[in-house]
């Protein structure tokens, strides 16, 4: 316990516990995971909040993420500047949202951001096409892709603007039986 205390102050730990779904043990474990990505960059003492940012290449190479077709999007959404480079805070944020305890609404909100590739706050057809291509590794023909995208918009677009807004997306995803169990990374 002695050396753990020096990483964060008690207040920091409490604050992190208030802001995430993690217990202190998990926060420390996450810190070590973060530090293991680049031991030479990340100091062992975080009590004075050093401004350390790890590049996306390191984040994306984590075993939890490296096989995920959406890893770049995840990193971009949770990074502060949208470039995929993450501070420890962003890192904690990411795994907090993807943890088991996070509520459906929060998960849905971030899932929407992840699938919104062009950041225009709507999932439009190009976003959907990208999603399908990532999910199937471009195995579908363009006609099939476009059919699938049209079907998705047809099914989920409640307000008839031809693209999915956050409300549409939540309306659809909240009814999905598998969403909570699959939009989840155990760390």
């Amino acid at each position, binding site marked *: 316990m002695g050396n753990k205390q020096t990483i964060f102050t008690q207040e920091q730990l409490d604050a992190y516990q208030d*802001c995430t779904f993690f*217990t202190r043990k998990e926060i420390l474990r996450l810190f070590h995971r973060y530090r293991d990505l680049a031991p030479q960059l990340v100091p062992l003492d975080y009590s004075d909040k050093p401004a350390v940012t790890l590049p996306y290449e390191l984040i994306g190479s984590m075993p939890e993420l490296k096989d*995920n077709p959406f890893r770049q999007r995840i990193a971009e959404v949770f990074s502060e500047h949208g470039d995929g480079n993450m501070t420890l805070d962003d890192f904690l944020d990411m795994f907090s949202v993807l943890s088991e305890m996070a509520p459906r609404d929060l998960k849905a909100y971030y*899932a929407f951001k992840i699938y919104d590739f062009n950041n225009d706050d709507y999932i439009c057809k190009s976003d959907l096409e990208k999603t399908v291509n990532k999910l*199937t590794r471009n195995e579908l023909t363009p006609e099939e892709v476009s*059919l699938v995208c049209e079907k998705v918009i047809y099914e989920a677009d409640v307000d008839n603007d031809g693209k999915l807004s956050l409300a549409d997306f939540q309306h659809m995803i909240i*009814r999905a*039986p598998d969403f909570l169990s699959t*939009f989840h990374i155990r760390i």
Partner: protein
Amino acid sequence: EDKEEDESKEEDNGSQQNRASRRKNYQRKNRDGKKAREEGSQKKDRGKTAPNKDQKESENKEKKTTKRGKEGENKQKKGRKNSTSSASSNSSDEESLSEEELAMLKEQVEQKKKLISTMRNKPWRMVKKLSVLREAQDFVEKFEGALGKGKGKKLYAYKMMMAKKWVKFKRDFENFKTQCIPWEMKIKEVESHFGSSVASYFIFLRWMYGVNLVLFGLIFGLVIIPEVLMGMPYGSLPRKTVPRAEQATAMDFSVLWDFEGYIKYSALFYGYYNNQRTIGWLKYRLPMAYFMVGISVFGYSLMVVIRSMARNANESTADGDDDNFIFSWKMFTSWDYLIGNPETADNKFASITTSFKESIVDEQESNKDENIHLRRFLRVLANVLIICCLCGSGYLIYFVVKRSQTFSKMQNVGWYERNEVEIVMSLLGMFCPPLFETIAALENYHPRIGLKWQLGRIFALFLGNLYTFLLALMDDVNEKLAEEDVVKNITHWTLLSHHNSSAGNDSTVTPPPLSPADVPRGPCWETTVGIEFVRLTVSDILVTYITILVGDFIRACFVRFVNYCWCWDLEAEFPSYAEFDISGNVLGLVFNQGMIWMGSFYAPGLVGINVLRLLTSMYFQCWAVMSSNVPHARVFKASKSNNFYMGLLLLILFLSLLPVAYTIMSLPPSFDCGPFSGKKRMYDVIQETIELDFPLFVAKIFSYVANPGLIIPAILLMVLTIYYLNAVSKAYQRANAELKKKMQMQREEEKNKRNNKASTNPMLQDLEDLLTPSTKTESPPKQAEDKKTESPNGSSPVRKPGRGEVLAGSPTASGRGAAFTPPSQVFVTQPRTLGIRAPYPGQPRPWGHPLGPVPGRGRGQPCY
């Protein structure tokens, strides 16, 4: 939608705070330079406004980031207006202000507290969360003490302190609890390799382990340990001693392995316990404890299973059978974020692709039933075959158990004869499921439906086997009961004669007591039943482990190493690696638990064995799955599977409760073994305790309560309640369905409206198709007219054929072309389109809406 509400509330809060701070600013300005004693409160105001402003700003930022900036600003403006008006009114009456202020402050503190507790649910950046959190905490810290002036102050402060302590304690407890959850990393590893479905089995196993640990603690703490510590020692009573005839072989391994010999006469089995009412210096009422623990094992299990079922049902508000979002769900929820292994990822990609393709095919040709008669015939045939298998296996078990009873009467039976029942049951459990799977190939169901059938059939097999086993065992028990009467007399007579003989020889010296090993004793059917269950459990464990070892590990080794020198590719072709059989494993676990529940009353040590089994199988199966299994090629996750398994567990629990309850309620306990010996029925122990240990009125109350006249109405009441609740839930369901339908209709309506717009294009086309001949025929004169009218404008006659071409081409072009046709020619259609377009003045681009490229679809599926 909830979130939206949340945010609007938040905005309200923001505006309220805003208002409050404004007012204070205003007041401060008013009061500036007035009385010095107001300094304190002013300071307070200043202190309050500063964080408030920051907060406001941050919240504004937040609103902007969530793209509801406009609403937020509007509200804020409103708030500002309100604040100015209220401030002007407030400045007039300063007396009521402090009260109001206090209330306001309290409210704000409450709000901040709420904010702190829900901070983790906010979709904000961590930096922002941290800063807002700190501000809120500072605010609460600062003004908490100021609240509750006067008499309530101390109480308030105390309450606050206790609340703080409570929060801290809860957090520590949470931390402790998560530290106690074992195998988190192991499961994570499995999860990342095999996806969440395989991991769900291990989570289920872990849960089961927890439940069994509690049962183990209950039984060991309240029954076995008191008996071992305080009860009569081994060898003091006939029931605690190995009979003379068996003593020579009682320590042989082959005997111990069959749970005979010393193990049979140990605290692991029912027969060892004495019927002494109280034991030891604690006056521990062991028979009573034994009975209550037996009941509470079932009670606790029922409670836990039902509670977790309810929790699962609460969590999954989603109705998985909603057909509205097939593609959307495939798109957004099919990737399993837990996957962290390239091989699994490849499989997942492939399975997602196939599932998309399947859905597309389904969409394109909804029903393609080729030769439905053949398929129907095959399905009926498959079901007949499987029913034959089930009946056969049931008969086989009955036959074998019957045979084992004749074997048990004979001497010198071999190892196989003694273990025939267990072997046959295990073999059936091993070979029938694959057989069913082979037969199921005939049926050609969709894999997901096929999985359900398969599960149901295996369940029926296991259940049938278990119940035939029980029936046969019951026969055995009845036989033993008949035998017991005879033995009882013999024992009585033996003891009497021994006493008489010793008394006759020498009446002054106390006769040497008959050694407990020599006393003839009854068959003790309870211990027999307990031994049967223990043996069944142990053989089940062994068979499971051997199956894993041979079927998975050896096969994997063979495939891996022989592959270098084999004619075909072993890894890809026939044997290949095994897949992890989730459903079979879960069912095995569930049935094993059923046996534990059934057997634990007659063999208290059984739960200990089961705890060991679960512990080892956690490690063993984790190792096996990681070393020798491959991820599923096609994972069909049964949605809501958790509750499905729990439902099975509940069913098994109920079914295993039945025989135990039957034996407790209607069979007489053995006369010379077990805690209830000498009583007519086992439950007499409760009556005895109440009569002897409780005051008289408790016994009276109990006798009233146990009166059938009271029990039957109570049951009736319960049935009626169930009926009523059922009716209510049905009504809710109907209302739900109604609402859903309404929503559907609304959507449909909007779609139709939109499709009308879309269909204007095809409609136009159709009209134009009709019109084109006429336009073509009419065009020469009209154009002649045109020419006449246009000739002053200097249009050359050369343009005429060009225009005609455009007109001829327009019907085949998209509907949009119609807009460019001169109004004089499409005078029929033009007003109509206008009429349809009229209800949508707000649409920015009535023609170029996004669904334009697929105009035909809207008409193609009107019933969707």
